[in-house]
């Protein structure tokens, strides 16, 4: 079954051709474009990254049915996991949301006062929620993971953001796109509206995969470390 997933000897360029959204994940690993004919394995060695971990992320991003099993988790070097997730957060907060905001302000400015105000306030609330979600993960979940990795006897922090809270972040983006193309009369600025809707959809798809990474990799890995701690 696993044959069709990405493996280390594939050319990086072929992997990206198979799923172009992986290009967005490269900077989070610190990988630059210009792969030449090198394989995923070779590129990972060049950047000092554990290839199993990079493949895990690529596979989750690409194959909806991909689910790492216990052995995969056991085998993989997870040292880049937290830096990867933090880089993803930075990308969403510092690049994607400001990008969407620019388009949204444009649309809000063209759509008339009433629509503009509603859109801006929805987006502001959304941004606050995202920031709070990420901050809570970075404040509680990631440090907890790092301490577990060092073999410390720590208790799991009580946090509402520990697990299952991504659906709302994704749902709200979906709602925003629905509102934009169904209820905003955009005859005079159709192009801007389209740009905005596409930018939001792209972020939404990315956040969905981000949620899968946290739910299918981060959490099982934490649970695995916790079992190790409890047996120690």
């Amino acid at each position, binding site marked *: 079954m696993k044959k069709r997933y990405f493996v280390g000897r594939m050319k990086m360029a072929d992997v990206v051709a198979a799923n172009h959204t992986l290009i967005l994940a490269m900077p989070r690993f610190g990988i630059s474009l210009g792969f030449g004919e090198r394989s995923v394995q070779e590129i990972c060695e060049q950047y000092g990254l554990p290839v199993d971990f990079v493949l895990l992320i690529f596979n989750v991003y690409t194959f909806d049915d991909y689910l790492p099993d216990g052995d995969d988790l056991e085998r993989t070097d997870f040292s880049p996991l937290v830096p990867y997730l933090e880089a993803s957060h930075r990308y969403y907060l510092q690049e994607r949301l400001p990008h969407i905001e620019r388009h949204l302000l444009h649309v809000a400015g063209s759509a008339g006062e009433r629509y503009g105000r509603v859109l801006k306030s*929805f987006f502001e609330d959304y941004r606050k929620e995202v920031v709070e979600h990420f901050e809570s993960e970075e404040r509680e979940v990631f440090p907890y993971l790092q301490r577990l990795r060092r073999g410390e006897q720590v208790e799991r922090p009580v946090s509402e953001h520990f*697990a299952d809270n991504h659906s*709302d972040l994704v749902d709200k983006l*979906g709602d925003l796109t629905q509102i934009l193309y169904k209820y905003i009369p955009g005859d005079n600025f159709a192009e801007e509206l389209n740009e905005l809707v596409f930018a939001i959809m792209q972020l939404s798809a990315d956040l969905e995969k981000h949620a899968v990474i946290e*739910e299918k990799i981060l959490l099982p890995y934490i649970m695995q470390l916790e079992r190790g701690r409890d047996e120690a």
Partner: protein
Amino acid sequence: MKPKVQVLVAEPSDMIREGLKALLDEDEFVFQAPLRELPVDLPQRISRQQPDVFILNPTLLNTPSRMQLVSIQQARVNMAVVALVYQYIDPSVLQQFRTVLDVREKGSKVAQLLRESCQAEVDDDESYELSERETEVLVLLAKGGSSKEIADKLNISVHTVNTHRKNITRKTGIKSVAGLAVYAMLHNLVVG
């Protein structure tokens, strides 16, 4: 004669499973082979066996439960997934179920609850216009009311409020309360 309701139960306790079965009229409810735990091929089994109701003890789910519940629901979209509860379960998990069946529920009510959960499926009407009642619920939601508060105000059950809410989401495509509030404002249903 009415078609029988096909019931699939996933529950580790023999006593609970057998008790549940004993409470229900076998002329109306047919029990499929029970599950003591969730097999890996659960979605495939569901698409094969086509149960109308899936009564599931939420403690059998992985953490986090959302992805797993989504794949269960996708295996049979019209199936009512009912939580069978006898201990504390996080409300965020329970709200992903269509109905919650508490073991402390009166025996005489169980059949009715299951019947309702099947019928509470999205109404058949194909229209995308909100009904008067749905609009009322939407406005109260947009103003920040909880399902419980709305139920009290309109004198209907929480279950019915949630059914209205599902229909509102199906018709508008909007899931979050914040999104519904925007919808209500843009349609002049509330003052923004």
